[in-house]
C-alpha cells in the first residue's frame, strides 16, 4: 500500500499536541502496535516512518496554525523513557531503498524543527525524562535546549556504532560536533560508549544544556521554556492547513489542484506539472492573511512537497522526473512580489520559508530532474527555482520569442539551498559577476536566447529539433545506472562550501548509506542483522 504523508492531529496515533498560551507540548507516546507494518513492535517510544510523518505534520502545523506559540516542549508520554530512536527490527527488515528514504525524511523533519526555531521564532525544548538513545537523542539535538533528568541512571547515548554497526544517521554525528560543538575527542568517546553519558558529565561535555532531579524536572522544563519564549514576536492569528490529498487516477497519476504527476512507470519517468495561479491572488498583508492555506503560494508548494515525497517512497523505480511549469509567468512574479513586499507579515514570511524547504527537499531527492520550458512555460521567480534545482534545463528556442523565464526576489536569497548558497550562486560558483548580471534582470522576461546567454539554459533546441532532442535526452538518462546517477547528482548539485545541514546529507547520510550496504551491517553475520538474534556478529576486518 502506498504511504501517505498527509495526516492531521485528529488522526495522530503517536503524538499529542497540547497548548498553553505561548507554550505547546508535543508529547511522544508511541503505540507499540501502531506501526506502518505489523511485523515489528514499537517498544520504548521507538519510531518508524509513520511516527515521523506525524512529527513533521505537527512541526508544520505549529508554524501555520499556531503562530502564537513561541516555545514547543518535546517530551515523552511514557515513564522513564524519552525515545529509544528508530525501531531496529523495522530497519533490519526494511529494504535498502526504504532505509535510505526513511533516514532522509527523518533528517528533513529534524531540520524543519531547526528551521522553525530560526525563521519562525518557535523555540524547541527537549525534556528528556529517561532513556534517550540513538535517534531519540538525535531528535533532542534538533531542539534548542536539552534538559536531562538526573536520576543516577538516565543517560543520553548514541549506541549505533558499538551496538548496531551503523551510524547515528539522523544528523547525530554532525550535530554533536558542528551544532553543539562537543569536542571531537569527547564525541569519539561518547559515540562508542553504548550506555551513554548521564548527569553532570553530560552537561560538562555539552551533550545536554541542563540536568534536573525528578522532583524538580517539570519545573526546570517550564522555566527553560518560559525563558526561551521571552522576547519572541507576537504573531497570528493562525490559519488552518486545508487538506491537499491528491486524486489518484486509474493509471496512478496524482492530481492535485496545482500539481499533477503523470507516471510513465515503464519508462521509469514521471512528469511533474505545476500550474501558475489563474485566480486572483492576494497582494496586501490582510489579503494574504485572509486567503489562508488556499492561496497559490502555499497550496501549490504543499502539493509539490507531497508529490516529491510520494515519488520518493511510493515510486522507487521512477528515476527521472520531468519538471514543467505552466501558465502565466507574470502571475507567478506577482505572487512573489506580494510575498516579498509583505515579508514582515508572519504568514508571508512562513510561506517563503515553506517554499524554501520544499525546494531543498527537491535538491535532496535521489532522482534526476530535467526541467522543460517550451510554449506556455511559467518558470519565473519561485518556479524558476525548480528549473535551477533541476539537473538540466531544456528551453525551446521558439521563432516568435514567446517562451520566457524571469527572476524575482525569490531567486536572490530567499530560497537558500542546504549549504546556504542560492541556486544561482551554486550554479555560477566562482563567478559572482554572472549572478550580478542576472540579478539586474529581476522582473524582466528573458527570452530563450537571453536566458541562454546569461547561463540559465543547458540546451536550447529549436522547434524542429525539440521533440527528438528532448526524447533522446530523457531516454538516455533513464537508461543510466541509478546508483551512479544518485551519487553524481548529489555531488554536482552542491558546488561551494559545506554547511552543517548539507553535511548531514553529503557526509553522514552518504556514509550511512554505504554502511547500510556492507556485510558488517547487513550481511548474514552483520551487526544489524544479528541485533536481537541469539548469536553475535562477525566482522570482516578490512578497512576501506
Amino acid at each position: 500500500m502506498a504511504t501517505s504523508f498527509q495526516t492531521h492531529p485528529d488522526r495522530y496515533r503517536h503524538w499529542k499536541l497540547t497548548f498553553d498560551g505561548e507554550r505547546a507540548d508535543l508529547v511522544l507516546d508511541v503505540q507499540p502496535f501502531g506501526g506502518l507494518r505489523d511485523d515489528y513492535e514499537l517498544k520504548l517510544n521507538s519510531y518508524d516512518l509513520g511516527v515521523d510523518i506525524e512529527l513533521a505534520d505537527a512541526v508544520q502545523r505549529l508554524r501555520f496554525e499556531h503562530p502564537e506559540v513561541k516555545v514547543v516542549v518535546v517530551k515523552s508520554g511514557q515513564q522513564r523513557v524519552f525515545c529509544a530512536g528508530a525501531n531496529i527490527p523495522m530497519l533490519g527488515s526494511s529494504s535498502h531503498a526504504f532505509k535510505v528514504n526513511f533516514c532522509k525524511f527523518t533528517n528533513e523533519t529534524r531540520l524543519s524543527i531547526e528551521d522553525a526555531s530560526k525563521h519562525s521564532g518557535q523555540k524547541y525544548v527537549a525534556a528528556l525524562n529517561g532513556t534517550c538513545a540513538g535517534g531519540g537523542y538525535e531528535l533532542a539535538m534538533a531542539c534548542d535546549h536539552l534538559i536531562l533528568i538526573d536520576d543516577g541512571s538516565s543517560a543520553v547515548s548514541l549506541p549505533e556504532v558499538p551496538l548496531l554497526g551503523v551510524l547515528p544517521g539522523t544528523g547525530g554525528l554532525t550535530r554533536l560536533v558542528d551544532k553543539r560543538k562537543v569536542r571531537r575527542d569527547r564525541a569519539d568517546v561518547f559515540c562508542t560508549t553504548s550506555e551513554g553519558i548521564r548527569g553532570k558529565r553530560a552537561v560538562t561535555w555539552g551533550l545536554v544544556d541542563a540536568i534536573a532531579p525528578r522532583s524538580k524536572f517539570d519545573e526546570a522544563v517550564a522555566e527553560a521554556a518560559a525563558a526561551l519564549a521571552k522576547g519572541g514576536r507576537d504573531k497570528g492569528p493562525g490559519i488552518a492547513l486545508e487538506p491537499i490529498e491528491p486524486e489518484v487516477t486509474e493509471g496512478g497519476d496524482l492530481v492535485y489542484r496545482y500539481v499533477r504527476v503523470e507516471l510513465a512507470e515503464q519508462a521509469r519517468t514521471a512528469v511533474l506539472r505545476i500550474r501558475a495561479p489563474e485566480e486572483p491572488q492576494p497582494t496586501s498583508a490582510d489579503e494574504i492573511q485572509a486567503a489562508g492555506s488556499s492561496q497559490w503560494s502555499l497550496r501549490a508548494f504543499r502539493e509539490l512537497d507531497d508529490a516529491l515525497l510520494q515519488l520518493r517512497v511510493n515510486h522507487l523505480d521512477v528515476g527521472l522526473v520531468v519538471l514543467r511549469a505552466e501558465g502565466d509567468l507574470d502571475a507567478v512574479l506577482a505572487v512573489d512580489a506580494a510575498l516579498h513586499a509583505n515579508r514582515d507579515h508572519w504568514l508571508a514570511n512562513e510561506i517563503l520559508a515553506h517554499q524554501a524547504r520544499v525546494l531543498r527537499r527537491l535538491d535532496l531527492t535521489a532522482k534526476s530532474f530535467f526541467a522543460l520550458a517550451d510554449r506556455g512555460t511559467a518558470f519565473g521567480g519561485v518556479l524558476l527555482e525548480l528549473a535551477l534545482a533541476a539537473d538540466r534545463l531544456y528551453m525551446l528556442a521558439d521563432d516568435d520569442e514567446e517562451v520566457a523565464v524571469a527572476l524575482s526576489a525569490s531567486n536572490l536569497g530567499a530560497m537558500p539551498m542546504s549549504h546556504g548558497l542560492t541556486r544561482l550562486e551554486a550554479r555560477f560558483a566562482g563567478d559572482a559577476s554572472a549572478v550580478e548580471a542576472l540579478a539586474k534582470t529581476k522582473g524582466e522576461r528573458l527570452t530563450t536566447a537571453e536566458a541562454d546567454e546569461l547561463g540559465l539554459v543547458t540546451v536550447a533546441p529549436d522547434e524542429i529539433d525539440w521533440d527528438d532532442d528532448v526524447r533522446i535526452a530523457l531516454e538516455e538518462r533513464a537508461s543510466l545506472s541509478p546508483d551512479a546517477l544518485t551519487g553524481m547528482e548529489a555531488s554536482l548539485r552542491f558546488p561551494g562550501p559545506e554547511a552543517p545541514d548539507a553535511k548531514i546529507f553529503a557526509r553522514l547520510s552518504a556514509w550511512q548509506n554505504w554502511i547500510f550496504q556492507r556485510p558488517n551491517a547487513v550481511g548474514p553475520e552483520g551487526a544489524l542483522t544479528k541485533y536481537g538474534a541469539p548469536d553475535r556478529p562477525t566482522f570482516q576486518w578490512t578497512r576501506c
Partner: protein
Amino acid sequence: MSTHTTANEVIPLSCPPMSLTDSIPNNVDLGSDKKLLRALEKWQPNFLEWWKEMGPDGFQEDLIYLRTAIDVDPAGWATYDYVKMPDYRWGIFLTPREGERQVHFGDEQGQKAWEEVPGELRGILRRIIVTQADTEPASVEQQRQLGKTAPSLYDLRSLFQVNVEEGRHLWAMVHLLHQYFGRDGREEAEGLLERRSGDADKPRILQTFNEKTDDWLSFFCFTMFTDRDGKFQLAALSESGFDPLARATQFMLTEESFHLFTGETGVERVVQRACELMKQDPNGDARAQGGIDLPTIQKWINFWFSSAVELFGGEISSNAADYFATGLKGRYREAAKYQDHQALGDVYEMTVFEGGKLDRREVPLRNALNEVLRDEYVADCERAVRKWNHVIKKQGVDVELKLPNRRFNRSMGIYAGAHFDLEGRPITAEQFEAHRSEWLPTREDRDYVRSLMVPVYEPGKIANWIAAPKKGVNGQPFELEYVKFAPR
C-alpha cells in the same frame, strides 16, 4: 611508604588514619595493591557514612551477635562474635581457584577465562555488575526501620546479619568496579552510595528494590522471594568467563543462603502460628487471636512473588542472548547441568499472549535464557511452598498456599499490560480490579499487619503472630541475648 603496619607500630603521618589492610579482611592481596588501596581509601569513609545514614535506624551502638567472614575456608568464613555494626569487618573475598580456568559456554567456549576485563565487553560487564551491586545497598535501605518492630531478639539479629552481609556484597561488587574498571568503575561505585531506595530523584535501578518493606511479613517475603532472585542471578554469574566475577559471586552465594533461610523459615513460622491460632479460636479465625491469617499470608506471597519474577528480565531478550554468547552469564549450574554449552540452534517453547489469547511460540534458546532462569526460580519457590503446606497439614488445617502463576500482576515483559488471574488465565482489567482486594494486600491488610508489629526485645520471648524458630544461631539456644542493647 610503610608496606605493613601492626597495631603496635607508630603509624607515620603520611599514612591513612586507619590501616585499610588491617580493617578489611581479604584474600585479594589488598596490602600490596596500590590501585585498589587508593580507590578504597576514598570509598570506605563514604560507605561508612552511608551505613550510618541509611543502615539500620537506631541500633548502631548495640552489640549484635554477628557472623563475620574473615577467610574463605570453612573455619574462617563464619566466625561469630558480638560486634557493633559500624565496626563490622566488611571483607573482600574471592572463592579460591585451582589451576587455569576456561570460559565454559557461549561463543568463546574453550578460551582461557578472563582475568582482566576484555575491552569489547567493558560496557555490558559493567552494567551486569552495577545492576547486581545496586540491589545490595537497596535492600539495606528498604529494611532500615524494621529493627524497631522485631518479633524477637533472634529475628532482630537475623535482620542485622542480612543487612551487614548485603553491605559486604556491596563491597564485593565495588571491589570489582575499583579493581577492573578504572575511573568509570570508581564513579559507578560512588553512584551506588548516592542512589536511594524509593527516592523520587535517585531511585534504585530495579523497581522491586524501591518497594516498601515495612512489616516483618514483607521482610520474610523479601528474603524468601526477592533475595532468591539474587541467588539465581549470582549462580548464573558464578559461571562467568570473567573469573573475578565468577569467584566473587560464588563467595556471595555462601552468605546468601542464610538470607533465603531467614525468609523461608520466617514465612513458615508465621504460617505455623496462623494454624495454631486458628485452632485456638472458636471460629477458626487467626486474626481474632491476634495473628496473621493464612489468606493474608497468601496475599503477601502473591504480591512478592509477582514482583520478584519481574527481576529476571524480559521473556524474549537480546541482552540475555548477548550475556550468554559473550560468556559473561551462564545458565543456572551451567557447568554441572548441561551437556551442550552453546545453546545455539535450540528453541524454547514459550507461552505468549498475542491477539488477546495465550499461544505457544518457539523462541531461539539464547533469547529465552531469562525465562529459563525464571523456570529454575519458580521451581525452587514451589519447593518452599510445598514445605509450608506440609506444616499446615501437620497442624491438621485444611488450607493450601499456592504460588500465583508467573503471568499474574506483571508490569514488565511480554505479559505486561494484559491481566491474568492467579492461575494465569487471561481476564479483563475490570475482572482484575474486581478481584484485586482478594488477591493482593489491601491498605486495610497492611494496616492490620503493621498493627501487630510491636517489638519484643526480651531474650527468649517472641511476638504472638509468629512461632519461635526450631533452633537458635550457631548452636546457641533461642533464648540467647542475641542483641545487647547499649543504654538508651
